[in-house]
């Protein structure tokens, strides 16, 4: 085989690289703003993006939703993001400690935890203490992710020891195992119970043992559209932005 195709491949590669470069150098007030957001914000921020685009037709928001810890890894490895929102302070601290932020962290919302149970609460779970019953299948988040850290702290606050059947790598893993009916209960964010709608039900956790998680936001150091990124953050903090977050069950910062 002769290498006739090779120049073509190289040419294609060069074209795609230069095209990408052209996009990058576009006007700072418009263009793609890449937002790395904690997975618990998925529904709320999707609506936030639509609302922001409607108000700023020149800008376009692209989201990357994943577990906060996962996003921090991606940022550390040089993933191109303009904005980063974490579901807790400790993951944000990793970013500020590595000086990957261009602006100081601003709290945009708060979240608390609830017990998620199956539709109609078939096992009649009413309190945290019920989770310790040996005939219940309980799943929690691993302590590497915010929901797992919160759950561990709540159980410690309430002095309840439970043996979960699984430690999920993200909050949606807990939600899906409960909504699928394989697990009886889990501890997730209040907003996750709300997002699950009819497929699950929630049981409140008393405020004296509950944990409040902060959602801090920053413009990243590598932001290619810093001005538009800051405009997006301002929009999230504004009254219309806060109304969207409240609609999805988030508390004011």
């Amino acid at each position: 085989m002769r290498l006739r195709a090779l120049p073509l491949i190289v040419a294609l590669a060069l074209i795609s690289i230069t095209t990408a470069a052209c996009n990058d150098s576009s006007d700072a007030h418009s263009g793609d703003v890449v937002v790395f957001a904690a997975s618990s914000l998925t529904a709320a921020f999707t609506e936030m993006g639509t609302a922001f685009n409607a108000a700023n037709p020149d800008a376009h928001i692209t989201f990357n939703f994943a577990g906060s810890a996962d996003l921090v890894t991606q940022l550390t490895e040089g993933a191109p993001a303009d904005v980063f929102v974490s579901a807790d302070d400790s993951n944000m601290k990793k970013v500020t400690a590595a000086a990957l932020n261009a602006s100081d962290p601003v709290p945009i919302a708060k979240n608390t935890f609830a017990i998620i149970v199956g539709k109609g609460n078939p096992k009649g779970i009413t309190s945290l203490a019920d989770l310790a019953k040996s005939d219940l299948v309980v799943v929690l988040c691993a302590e590497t992710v915010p929901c797992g850290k919160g759950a561990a702290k709540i159980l410690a606050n309430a002095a309840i020891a439970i043996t979960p059947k699984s430690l999920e790598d993200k909050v949606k893993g807990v939600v899906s195992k409960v909504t699928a009916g394989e697990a009886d209960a889990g501890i997730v964010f209040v907003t996750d119970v709300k997002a699950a709608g009819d497929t699950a039900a929630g049981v409140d956790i008393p405020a004296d043992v509950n944990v409040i998680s902060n959602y801090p936001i920053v413009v990243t150091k590598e932001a290619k559209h810093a001005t538009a990124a800051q405009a997006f953050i301002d929009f999230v903090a504004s009254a219309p932005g806060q109304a969207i977050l409240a609609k999805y069950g988030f508390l004011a910062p």
Partner: protein
Amino acid sequence: MLALAIVAISFFALPLIGLIWRAPWSKAWTYLSDHAALTALRLSLHTSLWATALSVLFGVPLAWLLARTQFPGRSAVRALCTLSMVLPPVVGGVALFFALGRRGLVGQWLYRWFDYQLPFTTAAVVVAQTFVAMPFLVITVEAALRQLDTAPEDAARTLGASRWYGFRRVTLPAIRPALVAGAVLSWARALGEFGATITFAGSYPGTTQTMPLAVYLARETNPEQAIVLSLLMIAISFTVLVTLRDRWFGNRHDTAVLS
């Protein structure tokens, strides 16, 4: 040709070199002797060997059925039995829920009659791994059976061997390289299985948290440990692939010439 082949080699070698380059060698032993890592490794070896054994036990008869018999809808059956190779593993895990979970098609009866729930058990890990791994054995063995001359097997039968005896003593030895290759491929796939396991079996240290799950979780808190654990998995798989290849196929030609 050579240039493209070298590009292909670099494509596979570079990520590995990247891992080795970033590995914290001074702390490697500490991470490897970590109790949690050893638990995950033991569970991974245990479950992947079970999955391989089940793949051989059920996969060889399935391959035989597909290669040696004619029945209507055979190609549909073949497609069905190899579907999990192309199915996203997470989808496979969800489908296993619907079949074998507490609310599943079959699983609900297990739960009602025997109070047995498969998800979140080590058995569930083996089921998830077997589900994605068996097709690799089936297609390898089926291809070997198709290429195999049936005359010796027929001869054995005319000499009074039962069908099972002929298969065991004549056919199986003839397809042994393919059987080993298929088993190794299945084992490698089972060892690396992530998506179906975390979906169907969950992730709990000692019960269902296999090496790939442990690596994924470690990556979020202790990336250095994740690298060391990944390298350990690579070393194990690499050793098995290289030794078995040499033993069964690799240098057969050279050794024949030399001896």
